[in-house]
């Protein structure tokens, strides 16, 4: 059985970690063909061909596919769908934008954010902000699935798949890209980082968020934030961890000044080790933390940064 996997391509570059994790998830379903689509996608296609487990790579380069607008990208995937039983992607904002559109055009349901593969038709996915795990069995002829990357290991390198250029389909011309505002960051990418240090409302200001960033830099970690911290303007919104932000599962997650609301826990409770620093000993975050420190973060975080 054949699987078409939409590679995560940003500005011509392959997001290797997200794509390789989706490959691991999809390996259990059949032979994987990766689709790299974009205004430029050749280099991304070459990179995808090296992922272990990929049998073939299709590269579609066209101006209309730049910035992964949903309408032309979905039309392209649907034009290829005939040969595949599964159409899958890592559950990034790109895929969440495109895959449901693809599914509806094929008159099938989408399975969003799958965290486990039981068999070719049966998948596990978290619901209710991760407070329940649902096992669903699809009766559709084609399965359109996005995979929650945080729960799969990245497939290794060492593949040597053939790369084939294909052409884009006619652009429906319903949308155009205007601009990107990319948050510049030298730190590791949040969803693939091994260590994440997050700050919440307790940090108190954008200036004081530098304490969080200082500790993160010491640990080589990515910086995360709770919704409260983002809404208060302490941190940019693409740092938000939670049900509506990013879902992470690093080896170490340090939650500082975060109470631990259901919606935040949804994005980090699969982390291997959770550390919480909070002055409120009743904070729900202590119910999921492996190591908790009840302390004023303004004293504890600088001390911790020093002693590491």
């Amino acid at each position, binding site marked *: 059985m054949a699987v078409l996997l939409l590679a995560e391509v940003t500005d011509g570059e392959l997001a290797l970690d997200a794509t390789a994790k989706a490959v691991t998830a999809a390996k259990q379903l059949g032979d994987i063909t990766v689709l790299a689509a974009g205004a430029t996608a050749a280099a991304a296609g070459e990179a995808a061909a090296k992922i272990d487990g990929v049998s073939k790579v299709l590269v579609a380069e066209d101006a209309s596919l730049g910035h992964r607008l949903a309408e032309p990208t979905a039309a392209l995937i649907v034009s290829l769908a005939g040969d595949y039983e599964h159409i899958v992607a890592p559950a990034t*904002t790109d895929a969440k934008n495109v895959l*449901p559109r693809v599914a509806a055009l094929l008159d099938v*349901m989408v399975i969003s954010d799958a965290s486990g593969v039981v068999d070719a038709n049966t998948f596990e996915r978290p619901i*209710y902000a991760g*407070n*329940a795990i*649902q096992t669903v069995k699809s009766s559709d002829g084609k399965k359109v699935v996005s995979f929650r990357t945080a729960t799969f290991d990245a497939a290794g390198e060492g593949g040597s798949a053939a790369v084939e250029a294909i052409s884009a389909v006619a652009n429906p011309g319903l949308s155009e890209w205007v601009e*990107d505002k990319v948050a510049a960051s030298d730190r590791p990418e949040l969803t693939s980082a091994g260590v994440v240090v997050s700050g919440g409302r307790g940090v108190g200001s954008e200036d004081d968020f530098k304490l969080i960033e200082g500790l993160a830099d010491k640990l080589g970690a990515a910086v995360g934030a709770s919704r409260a911290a983002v809404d208060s303007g302490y941190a940019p919104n693409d740092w938000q961890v939670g049900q509506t932000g990013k879902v992470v599962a690093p080896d170490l997650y340090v939650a500082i000044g975060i109470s631990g609301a259901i919606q935040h826990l949804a994005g980090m409770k699969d982390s291997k080790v959770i550390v919480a620093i909070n002055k409120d000993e009743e904070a729900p975050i202590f119910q999921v933390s492996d190591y908790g420190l009840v302390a004023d973060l303004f004293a504890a975080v600088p001390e911790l940064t020093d002693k590491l």
Partner: protein
Amino acid sequence: MKVLVPVKRVIDYNVKVRVKADGSGVDLANVKMSMNPFDEIAVEQAIRLKEAGKAEEVIAVSIGVKQNQETLRTALAMGADRAILVIAADDVHTDIEPLAVAKILAKVVEEEQPGIVLAGKQAIDNDMNATGQMLSALLGWSQGTFASGLDIDGDNAIVTREVDGGLQTIKVSMPTIISVDLRLNEPRYASLPNIMKAKKKPLDEKTAADYVVDVTPRLEVVKTDEPEARKAGEIVGSVDELVAKLKEAGAV
């Protein structure tokens, strides 16, 4: 221009859900239900479009059980002009799938001819994040998902989207489907006089059969489990102790 706003009745976001012991689902009996938080943001945006003179009428629509009336009355109290309830289930535990919801909404759109559909980006119960995109596909319309900024400019909408890595601005042609993200606006509270007035606003009751849409699920729910519980952790007394524990655990 009319604005159509689909709203969903879901478990209140503050409620800690309980998975039923027999694995048949989540227990929704006697649990507080509310309007999906993202849908409140969509309703708020629709009303703001009307207040800005860019829309004439705001129609709220909900699909599910009879009790969804309450959710629609909330939308009416916030400022929607009228409501449509499509009854498609007789038990609160039956969650109609996004594909079926999108098909019903597509029929409502054909009837009402809105210039824009404002939907929430995801429902906090099934966490699917799919209905808006599916509706857009079925209608062959443009889509602007995860919107944190929206400006209507003649025949186009300028949408700022929250994407991984930052913000993306796109221009989509109208009519269009916009799915709204948390940061688009701060929804208003309905005042008591408005709640009273909302009781007199029109609420049409329909069924899925009226729209000739089959709501049979494509995904059979085999079981629903409790997520694996984390082992109880420990409270450490000092930063030194924390550092020692982390080193011992190999975490740093």
